[in-house]
């Protein structure tokens, strides 16, 4: 049967078809749907682990017991998992172990644009890279085959465009490979003390040699000869773009990007007059081809940054700019992503933006509150960074920083990597207020469960992490729980905690607006009473997408009486968007915002 599948769905399907029964992951765009989709198949175990390092360790354990195990993460997640990654390369896997790295060229939803092909080389782990959903489904199977055959973890690299584009996939029967699950003791292989690791270190090099030989005849590394005047080496999505831009040229299509098939590359280079490497981000393949002494054109014509498309590939190779019609000469206001109407983060950051503190931020929806008009967040580096940074800043500033440094972090992000830095604030005592923006879900990636929601990925009720108790157990003396949609309480508690000596923890708890909608919660939309609104624009300072400004034009003025001579318009609430969080009515001094009756 032919169906349309995203790259992520196809990876999940391929894993299921080849009998994979185990997956561990932490959600992260663009990788999230792989694990979500996989978890729905019959007879599989899939979990959200607290972070990518744990997920990889869980998958390693499963593989050592003989399972075929998947660890799934976005590109920056591999940084978190890097510690076990580099050494599982030494131990090998016993069963099958595939790590999926979903990279994000163009930073659609990430804080950096790192090219994780470098990890394959760095950690000496083979890497496959599919170029559409059909290949994604096939390649995950090949990855598991390679893992078992060569006793190695294997990377499958995706990019946003592969993960989130859909193409036609042929569904196949499930072919359960035999898994022999048992406890095996093999300390020389699995206890990486120096004496054993030195031996395995040599085994890794031998394995890479064997894999290099394998790459030469691997059918997914293939020469497609046409016009020999130009030859293009490409893998993944870059191949799809180049193939579309130059259907007439010859290609060396690489399904395996590490290790590279040096012989095949030499052979192809010998057959064509001019050789190009088309690859997004780093000159990963290009540098290695140059090291072989083969002349090649790459990054001197192609961009280093952002994802490509067929137009970019064509312009780079021909050196001719596309003749595009200019856009109309008007200012097109940007439409950045925004906190949803009714988002509880809005209340917290409305208050924080007015405290004159430095708010060290983290990764999540709330990062968006750095923008106007809230401007309530002042840094974002990586998952969990807020707490350590706030502590460091407070320590460096000393007296001067008292009551001035806040760290904010989401509930899921806190569990991911905020617990150890919070422990550090208690251990080394700084004057910081750490706020957990606890919206009861992993919102940014689309509502995934985590240890504090009380449910697992596969919907089982489980032990629910109690955040206030955890804070106290870590040594935080002052732990407060507030409702960020109550501005008065939020202001008062923030003021008290900022004045306090030593670290404190505020848990700003209110469920994500989308979570409420998903559960079928009733929205009680608010409206602006035009006869009361003075046009002071204070409510606009919340940056709520449901509130807009209507300037007086002739007609509106006839209907509405001006409260002051200077009044220029009124605020309007879109009843379809408003979910009645009441933040605007709390800031409206004239009392113009009321419930719709």
């Amino acid at each position: 049967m032919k169906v349309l599948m995203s790259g992520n769905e196809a990876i999940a399907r391929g894993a299921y078809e080849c009998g994979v029964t185990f997956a561990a992951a932490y959600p992260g765009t663009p990788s999230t749907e792989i694990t979500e989709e996989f978890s729905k198949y019959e007879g599989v175990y899939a979990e959200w682990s607290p972070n990518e390092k744990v997920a990889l360790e869980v998958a390693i354990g499963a593989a050592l017991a003989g399972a075929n195990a998947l660890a799934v993460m976005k590109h920056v997640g591999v940084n978190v998992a890097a510690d076990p990654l580099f050494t599982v390369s030494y131990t090998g896997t016993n069963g099958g172990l595939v790590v999926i790295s979903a990279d994000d060229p163009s930073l659609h939803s990430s804080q950096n644009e790192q090219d994780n092909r470098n990890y394959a080389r760095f950690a000496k782990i083979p890497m496959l890279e599919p170029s559409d959903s059909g290949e994604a489904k096939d390649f995950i199977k090949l990855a598991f085959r390679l893992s078992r055959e060569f006793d190695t973890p294997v990377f499958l690299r995706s990019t946003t465009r592969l993960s989130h584009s859909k193409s036609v996939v042929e569904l196949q029967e499930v072919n359960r490979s035999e898994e022999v699950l048992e406890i095996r003791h093999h300390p020389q292989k699995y206890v990486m003390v120096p004496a054993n690791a030195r031996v395995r270190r040599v085994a890794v090099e031998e394995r890479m040699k064997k894999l290099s030989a394998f790459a030469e005849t691997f059918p997914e590394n293939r020469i497609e000869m046409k016009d020999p005047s130009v030859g293009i080496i490409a893998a993944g999505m870059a191949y799809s773009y180049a193939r579309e831009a130059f259907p007439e040229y010859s290609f060396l299509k690489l399904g395996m990007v590490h290790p590279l098939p040096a012989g095949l590359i030499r052979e192809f280079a010998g057959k064509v007059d001019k050789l190009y490497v088309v690859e997004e981000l780093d000159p990963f393949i290009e540098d290695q081809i140059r090291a072989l002494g083969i002349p090649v054109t790459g990054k001197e014509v192609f961009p280093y940054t952002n994802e490509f498309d067929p137009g970019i590939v064509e312009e780079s190779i021909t050196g001719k700019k596309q003749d595009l019609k200019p856009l109309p000469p008007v200012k097109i206001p940007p439409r950045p992503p925004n906190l949803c109407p009714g988002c509880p983060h809005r209340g917290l950051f409305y208050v924080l933006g007015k405290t004159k503190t430095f708010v060290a931020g983290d990764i999540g929806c709330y990062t968006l509150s750095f923008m106007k008009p809230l401007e309530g967040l002042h840094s974002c580096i990586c998952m969990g960074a807020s707490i350590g940074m706030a502590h460091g800043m407070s320590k460096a500033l000393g007296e001067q920083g008292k009551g001035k440094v806040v760290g904010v972090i989401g509930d899921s992000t806190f569990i991911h990597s905020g617990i150890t830095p919070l422990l550090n604030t208690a251990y080394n005592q700084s004057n910081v207020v750490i706020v957990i923006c606890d919206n009861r879900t992993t919102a940014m990636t689309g509502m995934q469960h985590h240890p504090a929601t009380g449910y697992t990925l596969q919907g089982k009720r489980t032990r629910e992490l109690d955040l206030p108790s955890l804070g106290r157990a870590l040594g935080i003396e002052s732990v407060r729980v507030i409702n960020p949609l109550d501005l008065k309480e939020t202001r008062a508690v923030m003021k008290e905690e900022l004045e306090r000596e030593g670290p404190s923890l505020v848990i700003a708890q209110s469920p994500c607006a989308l979570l409420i909608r998903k559960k079928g919660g009733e929205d009680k939309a608010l409206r602006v009473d035009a006869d009361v609104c003075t046009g002071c624009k204070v409510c606009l300072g919340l940056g709520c997408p449901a509130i807009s400004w209507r300037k007086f034009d002739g007609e509106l003025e006839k209907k509405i009486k001006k409260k002051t001579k200077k009044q220029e318009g009124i605020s309007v609430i879109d009843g379809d968007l408003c979910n009645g969080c009441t933040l605007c009515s709390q800031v409206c001094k004239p009392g113009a915002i009321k419930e719709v009756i």
Partner: protein
Amino acid sequence: MADRVRSILIAGVGGQGVLKASDILSAVIIEAGLDVKKSEVHGMAQRGGCVTSHVRYGTRVYSPLARKGNVDVLLSFEKLETLRYLDYLRDEGRVIINDLEVYPPSVNMGEAEYPGNVIDLVMERVHAVEVIKASEMASNLGDPRMVNTILLGVLSRHMEIPRGTWDKVLRQTFAPKVVEQNIEAFHLGRKE
């Protein structure tokens, strides 16, 4: 029709049903026996920001992304978004615009102006322009979310895919409760 790869660019604002529309469109194309690839955006880009989906079809499609200057139909769920992606359109391309304004945050705050003459600006540059009051039509039908089905109906007039194929896929896509109204919405768009 399948000699050359065709590209349709659907543009709109998060929450308008752009991705659902491109899913239906792609399913129809598969049903018609052609190859299709589509791209979309998730994650950060969803939160009320711009949403686009490229749908490309033909006998064999490689790239899920269209290049600029190469889109056959720009199907826009919101007026301003039409302007943002107009340079994707080929010379003889067609624009279908839903007559709806959704203000970006800067306009809501009164800091930027929403261009008042979007339709004129598009018409100055493109010959084939259709402006459809799809949001209004959907509300009249009783569910504003059906704007995407109506717009697919409008789009369907410019694709050589039999009506029966569309109906079949629409019936497979929607839950029994809403399938009849969506088919009605589709044909309303197809007649517009």
